């Protein structure tokens, strides 16, 4: 973006203001500019300062600085636990760290990506982006509509330059030569303008590769699109979780969720009341690979869905990496486990609880914790805590563990309690935790009555006539995440656009070609051409070669070809960087000299264009 840089440097009235901090990276380029800026200071005022600030903000250097700052600012988010992902870990961490934790929290280090400082960086970056893209788009629109720039006087100054001579007997006058070249270049995708077609030295200017800049603009604009889409998703989306035991049905209403996170603009009317029933969940585990026994290989949930309460039922398979789309949402399989089925009878012999109890995963091989609260038991409420092991095994020390994730030897080990569960006053409680402080133990390993150990189909009577518990069997459950994100599709579209723009911008080359012809006294038609690239272009030399080849073929100049290719190889095109100054002592001087000598009288400009040739040196 040399234009941008230049613009900045050349506008002293905006480049510096005494009040605002100077750009430290580059001190005022030259004393004259600084002096001018000083002289202009009284006129700067508020407007001037604002303009100065704007120029600074939209400069390439600021963009680069903000980009690097963004990279640095993103890092703490990987060093500290983040609230949106792990709220409980963050709470714990703040508690453990004491004052330090509070300081870290005040610095928003647990909410990096919604923090004021992170937001400030990316918002500034995107403002800078807009300030950068809009003027460039306007400038480029104008450039695309204007003609290729006028033919430079000295084509030999260009990074790629060459000459061709058409013999007099070929019958191709200067004007036709230019037209031929114009035709060829048009076919190559250049936009061409022929100048002075009837004059002594007709020439053409050609340009191609406007898509490069378009690609760059599309890329940057699409980044804004991605950001806006993501923000919109947060506003209008929602997400939630639900645990489904085999046989359970989820209905997409607020009460259907175990946990629900609405977006800022969420309305419950957005929920389409579809339903999904878990029919069966199948898990496959590795039985053979050494060192990996018990590693899961496949999870598969058979579900029956209905788009709306009276729509027909549909069978679908829900898998990890393979969500089910339903009613504008996607349903993901995010977890699974075991839910032992138990029947609990109270002291009066009535069934106080019957059904599945979701086990929470605690350790390897589905070692799960189980909590059962039985508020309906009479005369005393009952509570159970313990573990479920799909394949129980016992160590030498008598400690039970789960040996394999599948149901080879399912075992339920529990302790039981009675008393007031504290549920009646209406305070919400965690269903996965039982507070035993207020309860009296009935069964426990350290009591006379011992703990409860059950295999499927067995029962155990509780001491003191408090009732009994039966382990009826095991069902599996799945955890599903339900997401609705309206911004997602747009984010994808913009991301794809961005990539397309990026690739275009990086691999399309913007090039200009000029060709000038003239007729030598002896009737030969002299042709010279030059190429210029804008931005990085390592294939400019190849393009020059290709164009030369086309012209040679067009005019049947085989004899020159060998010389030509040799010639253009020996021309160091690397002088793109060094300017054209050294060009003339390159090997092409011989031919240039030939051309010059040949066209001396009638084609003064061609002559001039080979400045620094041997001919010229002699003159000096």
């Amino acid at each position, binding site marked *: 973006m040399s234009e941008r840089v230049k613009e900045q440097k050349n506008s002293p009235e905006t480049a510096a203001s005494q009040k605002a901090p100077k750009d430290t990276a580059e001190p005022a380029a030259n004393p004259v500019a600084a002096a001018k800026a000083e002289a202009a200071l009284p006129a700067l005022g508020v407007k001037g300062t604002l303009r100065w600030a704007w120029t600074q903000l939209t400069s390439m*250097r600021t963009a680069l600085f903000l*980009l690097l700052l963004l990279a640095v600012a993103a890092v703490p988010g990987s060093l500290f636990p983040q609230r949106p992902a792990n709220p409980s870990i963050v709470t714990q961490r703040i508690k453990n760290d004491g004052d330090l934790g509070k300081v870290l929290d005040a610095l928003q280090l647990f909410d990096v990506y919604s923090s004021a400082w992170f937001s400030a960086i990316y918002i500034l970056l995107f403002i800078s982006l807009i300030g950068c893209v809009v003027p460039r788009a306007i400038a480029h629109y104008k450039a695309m509509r204007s003609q290729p720039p006028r033919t430079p006087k000295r084509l030999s100054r260009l990074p790629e330059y060459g000459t061709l001579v058409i013999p007099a007997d070929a019958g191709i006058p200067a004007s036709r030569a230019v037209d031929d070249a114009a035709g060829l270049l048009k076919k190559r995708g250049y936009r061409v303008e022929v100048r002075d077609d009837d004059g002594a030295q007709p020439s053409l200017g050609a340009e191609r590769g406007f898509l490069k800049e378009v690609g760059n603009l599309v890329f940057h604009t699409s980044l804004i699109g991605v950001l806006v889409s993501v923000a919109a998703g947060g506003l209008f989306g929602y997400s939630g979780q639900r645990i489904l035991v085999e046989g359970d049905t989820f209905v997409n209403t607020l009460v259907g969720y175990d946990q629900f996170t609405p977006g800022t603009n969420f309305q419950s009317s957005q929920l389409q009341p579809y339903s999904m029933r878990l029919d069966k969940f199948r898990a496959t585990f590795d039985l053979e*690979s050494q060192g990996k026994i018990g590693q899961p*290989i496949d999870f598969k949930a058979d579900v029956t869905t209905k788009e709306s309460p009276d729509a027909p039922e549909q069978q679908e398979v829900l898998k990890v*990496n393979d969500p089910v789309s339903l009613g504008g949402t996607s349903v993901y399989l995010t977890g699974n486990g075991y839910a032992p089925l138990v029947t609990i009878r109270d002291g009066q012999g009535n069934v106080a609880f019957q059904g599945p109890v979701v086990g929470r995963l605690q350790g390897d091989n589905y070692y799960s914790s189980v909590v059962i609260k039985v508020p309906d038991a009479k005369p005393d409420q009952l509570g159970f805590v313990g573990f479920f092991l799909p394949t129980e095994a016992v160590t030498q020390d008598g400690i039970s563990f789960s040996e394999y994730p599948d149901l080879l030897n399912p075992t339920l080990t529990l302790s039981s309690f009675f008393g007031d569960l504290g549920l009646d006053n209406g305070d919400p409680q965690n269903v996965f935790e039982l507070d035993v402080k207020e309860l009296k133990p009935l069964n426990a390993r350290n009591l006379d009555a011992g703990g409860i150990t059950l295999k499927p189909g067995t029962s155990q009577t509780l001491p003191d006539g408090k009732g009994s518990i039966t382990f009826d069997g095991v069902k599996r459950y799945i955890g599903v995440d339900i997401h609705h994100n309206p911004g997602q599709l747009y984010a994808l579209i913009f991301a794809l656009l961005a990539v397309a723009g*990026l690739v275009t911008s990086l691999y399309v080359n913007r090039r200009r070609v000029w060709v000038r012809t003239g007729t030598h006294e002896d009737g030969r038609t002299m042709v010279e051409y030059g190429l210029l*690239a804008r931005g990085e272009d390592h294939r400019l030399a190849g393009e020059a070669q290709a164009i030369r080849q086309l012209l040679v073929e067009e005019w049947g100049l085989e004899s020159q070809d060998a010389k030509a290719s040799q010639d253009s190889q020996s021309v160091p095109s690397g002088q793109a960087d060094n300017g054209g100054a050294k060009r003339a002592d390159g090997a092409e001087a011989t031919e240039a000299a030939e051309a010059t000598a040949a066209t001396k009288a009638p084609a003064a400009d061609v002559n001039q264009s080979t400045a620094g040739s041997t001919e010229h040196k002699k003159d000096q």
Partner: protein
Amino acid sequence: MLPINETMGFYSELFMLLAGCTYTVAFIAFAWDLAKSSKALRAVDLKAAAAAEALEAASSPAAAKIPVTAGSVREASTDRTDSDVSGPVGRAERPSSAVSAAGAGSGLGQTADAGMHYGAERRVPARVAVALTVLGASIHAVGVLTRGFGAGRVPWGNMYEFLTTGAFVAIAVFLVVLIRRDLRFLGTFVVGLVIIMLVAAGTAYMTPVGHLVPALQSYWLIIHVSIAVLSSALFTLTFAMSALQLVQAHRQKTIASGGADKLGFMRLVPSALSLENLSYRINAIAFVGWTFTLMFGAIWAEKAWGRFWGWDTKEVWTFVIWVVYAGYLHARATRGWTGTRAAWLSIVGYLCVVFNFTIVNQFFNGLHSYSGL
């Protein structure tokens, strides 16, 4: 799900070991090449300098020392034209290009072809080294393939496989680029790195063949990870070039200001500007690859976890890398940031890549922590 073939897995490990041994010999050959060539070049220099001195002494006693070197080096070099990797137009004021313009213009302590085309002189050790690298890569390829067949899936599902397959891709990319460009000066570096990767895989991350956990069972694994590995391999090359660029720029400056050339072997390395230009081109490709890595990762995350972006540690670092390299591309178009500073950005970007792969995979827990450890 194809069954696991443990015999195949065993053979794979054997091939990896063999490949590692072959690379080690190749490494030695590359190092030998550097040492030998720099000695040979110095000898040529000395001879030419002596001749030139005699000549210069006769014609102009005031002749400076530098042009003498220039003359001599010009003879030693075969083709120093910048023809293929010229810098961007209108950036002649760039510091690095100023240095290299001086360097290329007068041939200051410079021998390697800036276009990185093969020269005419035969470098026997280098040829041996490349041949050995090709041999090593072939064995390595068999190792990767047998691993894939043994596991019945693509061989990039855990750290061991990322490393072994990644190392293979790095070598393959290097060899492919070698067809067109004489990057043999990078040989010690690339082969050395690949050996480190193989050793790390074989010791710290050894994992027998096995099935993938369900979270990884997706065609996105094939797409996302392969592009990530390929981009990382390209970043590896540019990292090496940027590091050399810094050294070379320093050396060019020292020589230009009349200092002694202490790093003779750097004669085999092209000018700082040529290195910068080629690494820019490779970085541009790798950046597009990394953009795809990021996007496909997001799409996969959406499929697997229900959200396309959640600032998981791995996602954070992938993003950081992307932004750093975006910064690099910007730097190349920002006055005062080309040359050395851009090279530093390229190096920082690569350090982030390495960090993302090693530390983040191992010590940070996040959703990606299933990398098979």
